[in-house]
Every structure is written in structure tokens, then in C-alpha cells.
């Protein structure tokens, strides 16, 4: 499973979506239960799965699934 597929799977799991609904353009406004707390749950799940740690600035900058994927890719590359 590649990075994008893994992120998609986690996003779908946290926000109770079908994986086919998780596009890079998906934003918090488009998901009813994507609030500040569920975003933190998402980040924790991502960090545990990829063994990375995002900064608060990075966490606050997550405004779409695409942005999240780019952040994860950057951190995975670094580690």
C-alpha cells in the first residue's frame, strides 16, 4: 500500500467515509464531522501509522486531504 492509499484509508476511517469519497480536494467544510477535535484524532492516527511528528503550525495548516498527503510525504522523506 503506498502513502496516498494509506492516508486515504486513515481519513476514511476517522471521518466515517467510503474510501472512494476521499479525494485530495476534500476539505473540512465538505465533511460534517471534520472539526478541530476530529482533526487532532486524524493527526494522531497519521503520526502513529507513519511514525512521524507534525508541528502545530503544520497541523493548523491542514485544510484539505491533499495538503495532509503532502505534509506526510515531506516527513516520510525526511525520516
Amino acid at each position, binding site marked *: 500500500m503506498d502513502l496516498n492509499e494509506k492516508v486515504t484509508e486513515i481519513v476514511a476511517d476517522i471521518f466515517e467515509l467510503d474510501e472512494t469519497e476521499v479525494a485530495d480536494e476534500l476539505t473540512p467544510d465538505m465533511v460534517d464531522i471534520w472539526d478541530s477535535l476530529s482533526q487532532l484524532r486524524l*493527526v*494522531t492516527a497519521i503520526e502513529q501509522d507513519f511514525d512521524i511528528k507534525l508541528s502545530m503550525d503544520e497541523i493548523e495548516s491542514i485544510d484539505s486531504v491533499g495538503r495532509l498527503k503532502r505534509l506526510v510525504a515531506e516527513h516520510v522523506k525526511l525520516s
Partner: protein
Amino acid sequence: MKLGQIARRFLIPSFVVTGVYLVKHRCMVSPKAEVELNKLISLGKGTDISSFAKLKANDGKLTVGENVSIGTCCFISADQGGVSIGDYSMVGPNSSIIGNNYRYDQLDVPICLQEKTSKGIHIGENVWIGAGTVVVDGARIESGAIVAPNSVVSGRVPKDAIVQGNPAKVIFQRR
């Protein structure tokens, strides 16, 4: 209820209680809050107790630190184990912090007549408890933690953790 306790609870006008806490402890207790004048209750400087909050201490200490904010309609009850809330903590409206339990091991005795137990509750400094949260006896919330609204805390919340749910679980570690 002892006679002195009845007198303190029902005969002392609330504005007197507000005045005593303001002068003696330099904290603001709303005249509409219910905080009895009791040696077991200690409120720190700059602490604010909002209207309709009720603070009681029966057989143990209720210690509230400095600059603590207790929201409207909160209920805080301390028993033998005591309840302590650290400096700069915030307790959101409609939250309950209940420092005792009833035993329920005798089926033929009404629960309210069975023995009370109290392990106590510790809430550290700079803790933010969201509205509607229930903190039950034995809970320990370490400094810097955040409890999401409507959570139920019964165990230990690690330092700087954000917890949510019933039972409250760590969803994020502050950094």
C-alpha cells in the same frame, strides 16, 4: 447535617459570602453561586466562581488554586479524599466534579444508605475542562491537559494530553 452547617448554608446571605471571599481570599464568588463559608473550602486569589455554581466540602478539603475559573452551573463536591484544582485552570459551564462514590455491595440496603467512599480528585495547573464534563472520584488530570466537552473522566489524564469521550481517551498530545 450539623446545626452549624445548616446555619452557614441557609442563614448567611449570599452577598455576605461574596464579600467574605472577596476580602479574605481576594477571589470573586458570584452572589448567585452557592459556596458555603467553610474552613474546608479554600479559594485562591483571582479565582472566579460564576453564578449558579455550587461548591461543597463535607469531610474533605476542596482546594481551588489561583486564577481559576469555574463556569456557570458547575457542581463541585469534595469528600474525605478531597478535591484540588490547580492554578489557571478553567472548568466549563455545567461540569460536575464529584469526589465521592457510594458502595453498592449490599443488595438489601438502599444504595443511598450504604457507605460512601472517596479517593479524591486531583486537577493540575493550567487544565481546561470543557463544558458539560463529568469528573468522577479517583480521577487525576495532570497539568496542561484539555478535556473536550461532555467527556467523562474517571482515570488518569496525562500531562498536556487532549482527551475526549466516555470514558475520556487521549486523542492528541499538546506540543
